[in-house]
């Protein structure tokens, strides 16, 4: 297979300052990326899966030449991202920062024309290209309106269209469906698939949505705290939990520390994590457990729930998902924000 993106030992640190009063500042080093080695092959959809603050956007920014790595090398389509940045930028399409990447005082069409001109696409060809993109994504209804009148989802669709303007063979999509309603998100996922299957685009996308990665990606890298923890197809990653099971337990209220500690102490439990969810407008806690055998631990968990009078909403033993793989590797859930003072 033809390698289209290759990184070797990429490291990136950020210096951040925490204000500790009017004059006092505390300097802190945040390790955004640590020794990232990655290879993406031509024609695949590759997903970077990780929570907020994991280092996904930093890696995309390095690969798209917006940031310089502190250490390591990266090549995109055979070009060094530091030494040949303009060559790299000619051949990539990027969707970064979503709706903030647009000129709000211009219409959608004027935005596409402007960015198309910066890719030096001849005017006649550009008009044709814009028309094709507008039809492909279905922007006809609002393309001639000022962007400031768009909904969040419409802005994201336009940002997606902008990434396609130069018909690049490689697309970088940073959280392409974030802030989109479910209908538009599903449509964008469908378009990403089409771009890959029918137009042969190689796509690197970041997401913190497990189902998105599972649905779209040929291969996925799990990234957390700047490190790549695992790479493989979704099935390969899930096979690391072969023979294991996952249980989701929803409890009403938020005082579940005792129950979590109890579950952790049970034999056969590999990982436990929890996050807050809203179920029927009520606050609840979802506990995720990865274990050897639900049959053995479920009775004990249920007994404890009954004894301690927890308000149990739902228990769901199921096959492991990518979210469970992430939990297995990190001990945390994808929905957690792991940003450090950035």
């Amino acid at each position, binding site marked *: 297979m033809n390698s289209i993106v290759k990184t070797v030992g990429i490291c990136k640190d950020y210096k951040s300052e925490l204000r500790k009063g009017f004059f006092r500042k505390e300097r802190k080093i945040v390790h955004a990326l640590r020794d990232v080695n990655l290879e993406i092959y031509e024609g695949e959809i590759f997903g970077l899966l990780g929570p907020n603050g994991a280092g996904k956007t930093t890696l995309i920014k390095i690969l798209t030449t917006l940031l310089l790595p502190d250490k390591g090398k990266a090549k995109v389509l055979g070009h060094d991202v530091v030494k040949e940045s303009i060559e790299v930028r000619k051949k990539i399409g*990027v969707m970064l920062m979503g709706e903030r990447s*647009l000129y709000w005082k211009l219409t959608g069409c004027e935005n596409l024309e402007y960015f198309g001109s910066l890719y030096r696409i001849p005017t006649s060809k550009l008009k044709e290209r814009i028309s094709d993109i507008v039809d492909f994504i279905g922007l006809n209804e609002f393309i001639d309106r000022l962007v400031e009148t768009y909904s969040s989802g419409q802005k994201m669709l336009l940002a997606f269209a902008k990434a396609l303007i130069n018909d690049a063979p490689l697309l970088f999509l940073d959280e392409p469906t974030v802030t989109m309603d479910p209908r538009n998100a599903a449509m964008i996922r469908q378009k990403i698939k089409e771009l890959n299957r029918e137009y042969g685009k190689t796509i690197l996308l970041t997401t913190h949505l497990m189902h998105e990665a599972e649905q779209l990606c040929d291969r996925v890298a799990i990234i957390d705290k700047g490190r790549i923890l695992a790479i493989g197809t979704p099935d390969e990653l899930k096979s690391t939990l072969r023979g294991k099971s996952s249980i989701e337990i929803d409890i009403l209220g938020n005082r579940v520390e005792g129950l979590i500690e109890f579950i952790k102490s049970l034999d056969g439990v590999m990982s436990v994590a929890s996050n807050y969810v809203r179920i029927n407008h009520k606050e609840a806690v979802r506990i995720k457990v990865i274990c050897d055998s639900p049959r053995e631990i479920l009775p004990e968990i249920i007994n404890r729930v009954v004894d301690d009078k927890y308000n149990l909403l739902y228990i769901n033993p199921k096959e492991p998902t990518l979210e469970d793989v992430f939990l297995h590797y990190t001990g945390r859930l994808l929905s957690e924000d792991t940003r450090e003072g950035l």
Partner: protein
Amino acid sequence: MLQVVKAVFKLRWKYLTRYPGWLIIFIILPIVFSVIPIVLGWAVAGSPQQAAINFKMNVGTSNYTLFMILGSLTWLLSVSIMWDFGMWIREEQEMGTLEQLLLTPVSPVELLVSSNLWALFNSAMQFLIALFVAGILFNFIGLLFTPAMVLTLVYLILGVFPLAGFALLIGSLILKIREAEAILRLLEPGIAFLVGIFYPVTLMPTVIRTIALLIPLTISLQDMRAVLLNISYIFNPQLDLLILLIYCALWPLLGTKAFNYVEKKAKKEGGLGGF
């Protein structure tokens, strides 16, 4: 390069026409701004005629109206270029579009040159329109259709071009410390004082005059006045021209160097897209 310049001009023109209030302000403001010292001069001298006599005695011309108008227009031109360019960088940064521009295969220098050319074009147009409007209002329009006006425009261009480099330097500073408004507001009165918008720079003490001469517009303004009002040049026409030509090479070079340095640093530290 031409396609990029065209695209930037088109974008900025659309933005300008979608905020039309600024167009009117830039034409009216210098005229209103010049009227203040003119009326003050009348009050101090006792009458417009006496003011003209006093002014001729000290400056060498009785046409104080054109003197003031040229001064305030030149100052507003410098302010306009610095705001236009400085705020452009900051606004793109705040909107989030600066990173998008740097994702395209256009080199940052091309973008800067294009944006700077727009700032120059826009400000020069405002200068000329306001000058002609003032010419009609203050009855010196005939002077603007003499051959001397061609030389005046040469001095204007030679003063404005290095100012683009100066604006680039300020833009780099803004990209780094992100306090566009504070920097620009600090510079405005400083430039007004040094360039000599309401008085000839030759009246200032030597130290201040020397500092003032580092600003290309000081020479440009005095020489425009010299051509149109027949008063003294800073040094002499040839030497002034030479200095302005040197500034035309020096200031843009300094500005580009500063911008490249700040951009590289921002790429290292990750500060390009920040607020």
